Every structure is written in C-alpha cells, then in structure tokens.
C-alpha cells in the first residue's frame, strides 16, 4: 500500500493503480467517459484530467493513465482543471445533443448550456461521443472486432465495414452495455435480435428449451464455446434462469438429502 494526497487529504492506494481508480473508490467525483474497468486505459475523452502538484512531473494530465506512486499529490478542483472540464463538457453537449446521459453528466458538473453550435455531427449521429468503449470491448474483450472507427477528424464515426450488415457481429450487446451515452440501439423482436445502429445486422436468438424465452444469440453461444473449455454441453440451450434451476435441481437434492 502507498499513500497519495488528493485535494490535500491523504488516502491509501495500491501500487500500480491508476489515479482515477483511487478517485472512484474514495467517492471523489470527476467526470469521465472513455474509462471502463474492463478495458485498458485509452485517454481519449480528456474529461478525467487532474493537476499533479507533487510527487511526479507537475502538470495537468488524465487520471485514467496516471499510475499512482508513493507521495503523489493531485488536485481535482484546481481552477485551470475546472475551467478545462467545463469547456470540454460544453463540447460534449454539442457533440451529442441527442444524448440524455451526456446532458445529465454535464449538468452534474455545472454545465447547462454550450457555446458551441456548429459541429459537423452528420457522420456519427447526435448521441455518440466517440469514447471508443464499444470498439474496445468488441475488439479487446470479445475478440470479435465487428465494429471500429471509420474516417478521421470531424468525420469520425463508429460503424461496420462499408456501413453494411456485419457478418462478424455475434449480438452480445456488450457495445450497448458499455456505451455511456446511450447511443446504440438494439431491438429484440421475436426470435431475432436487430442491431439497429449496426445497419440492422440481425441475429437469430436461441430459445430456452425449458422456459421458451430467447436468452442469447446462437452466435454468442458458439463464440463462448469456442473460447472456453470444459463447459457442459447443455448450457447451449438454456437461459440463465433455467441454468440456475438445473444446477440447483442437481445440487439441492444432494444437500437436502442430509
């Protein structure tokens, strides 16, 4: 354990952690978008910036990439940090005017209105903030890589190859799960999962043999089984609830027999 000083107060931290992790754990609230505990630090959104005042090279830097060391001193509310944060939040309001989550985030940190009005957001729509979480979870965690950034600069957007239906997508919905702006639309309709945002890529859902509910796409099941070893075969055809009941029904009798 090491000691770091945040806003003039001392805290304990684990060696090798990132400053943002410490802040989150200690309930010191600062905004961020691209950081996610399941993903490697990306440093794209620039919202989590803090000022280093001691113990390391002084300056303003992103806390999600700042590895804590013993004696590190940071300030999260230094005037310049606060000013930068406000300007960035104004930019995000104009970047994603259609995202309620982004508006809430801005409001939470004191930004109601934006001086920016004319961002060219045609290519990416009015909700995406280009934080890249969806791309990173699909590529790094799932190892699928169905979506990625396209173009660059103000024309940047995230989509499938040639803006078409994706043959690689497995319909796991991790992208929508990690999206901080609510920009990804998925509709489950009958035995189909329609990835609206990914050009209506449609996947077949598997029906639970017990409850008849649709619980996962066939592709997700195949994908899981291709990665994991020694999974019982029957899990391919039951929902999570049914799985629990089955296991319980195997387990309980042994227990109750006592």
């Amino acid at each position, binding site marked *: 354990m090491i000691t770091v000083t945040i806003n003039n107060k001392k805290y304990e931290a684990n060696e090798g952690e990132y400053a943002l992790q410490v802040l989150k754990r200690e309930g010191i609230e600062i905004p961020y978008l691209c950081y996610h505990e399941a993903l490697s630090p990306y440093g794209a959104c620039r919202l989590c910036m803090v000022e280093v005042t001691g113990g390391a090279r002084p300056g303003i830097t992103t806390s999600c990439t700042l590895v804590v060391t013993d004696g590190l001193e940071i300030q999260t509310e230094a005037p310049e940090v606060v000013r930068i944060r406000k300007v960035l939040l104004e930019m995000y309001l104009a970047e994603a005017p259609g995202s309620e989550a982004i508006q809430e985030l801005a409001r939470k940190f004191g930004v109601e209105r934006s001086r920016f009005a004319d961002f060219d957001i045609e290519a990416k729509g009015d909700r995406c903030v280009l934080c890249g979480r969806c791309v990173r979870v699909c590529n790094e965690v799932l190892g*699928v*890589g*169905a979506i990625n*950034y*396209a*173009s*660059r600069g103000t024309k940047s957007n995230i989509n*499938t*190859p040639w803006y078409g239906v*994706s043959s690689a997508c497995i319909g796991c919905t991790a992208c929508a799960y990690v999206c901080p702006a609510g920009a990804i639309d998925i509709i489950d309709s009958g035995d189909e999962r329609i990835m609206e945002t990914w050009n209506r890529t449609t996947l077949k859902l598997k029906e639970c043999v017990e409850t008849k509910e649709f619980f996962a796409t066939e592709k997700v099941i195949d994908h899981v089984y291709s990665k994991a070893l020694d999974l019982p075969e029957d899990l391919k055809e039951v929902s999570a609830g049914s799985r629990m009941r089955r296991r319980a029904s195997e387990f309980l009798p042994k227990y109750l027999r006592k």
Partner: protein
Amino acid sequence: MDEKVEKIIEQHQGKPGTVISVLESVQENYGYLPQQILEQVAQALGVPLAQLFSMATFYSAFSLKPRGKHTIYACLGTACHVRGGARVLKGVSQQIGVKPGDTTDDRQFTLETVRCIGCCSLAPVVKVNEDVYGYTTTDKMRGILDNYKE
C-alpha cells in the same frame, strides 16, 4: 483467394507493417480498395475486416472508389499557399468540373489536394501522377492537362 492477392500477402508477410503495406499494394494494383479483396486480406492476415475498413477510411492515400486514369495533386503546402496555390486549385477544379476528392465523369481525372510534396522552391506546385510541375498557373495547367487527355 485471388492470385494477385496471394502474391501481395506473400510479399509482405513476416515483415513489420504488413497490414498497411498490403493495403498499399492493393491500392496500387486495383486502383482502390475493393470490399471483396479486403475480405480476402482480412482472412489471410487474421485481422477483423472492420479494422481494415478503419484503415481504408483513415488514410488519405486509400480510396474506396475507383480513381481516375490520372490523378491531379494540387499542393496546398505553406509555400505553395503563400505563392497562390489555392487560386491554381480553383482554376483546375473549374476547368475539369470536379471538386477535390472527386473523379470526372469520363474517369479521366481525379482531383486531390496534397499538403507538401517537398518541392517548395517551385511553388505553386501541381503533380499529375508522378510528374511534378512547378510555377504553375491556371493557364499553364490547361496546357498541361491537355497533354494527358486521350
């Protein structure tokens, strides 16, 4: 897999920068990056197609649409800008009737802008394919482009 594609992959496999070099060779051989070819490349190299699409749309040397027979690169580097490059670009654009990035209807010319090909002493510079022309004016370009027309 297409034979041409196989050869390209072979040429670059095992060296650093395989992906970008393969894409460059595809661009050179086919004049653009066709989807079916990139699908083959994705499979052969074991990278997601979406990553290749990301590369294809990020770098300006790549195009998703077939280019014209001749590509006109009007340089808008600082030295060329200061010596009137923007006017020459406007003149050429009006002359052949397309905006930068587009190709003429008869597929003869594609007009691109480029920032600095390093011939700043001859500003303003226009490159057609591999030929570099210096001290250009709209009038001069008319004559130069006529030489490329069939």
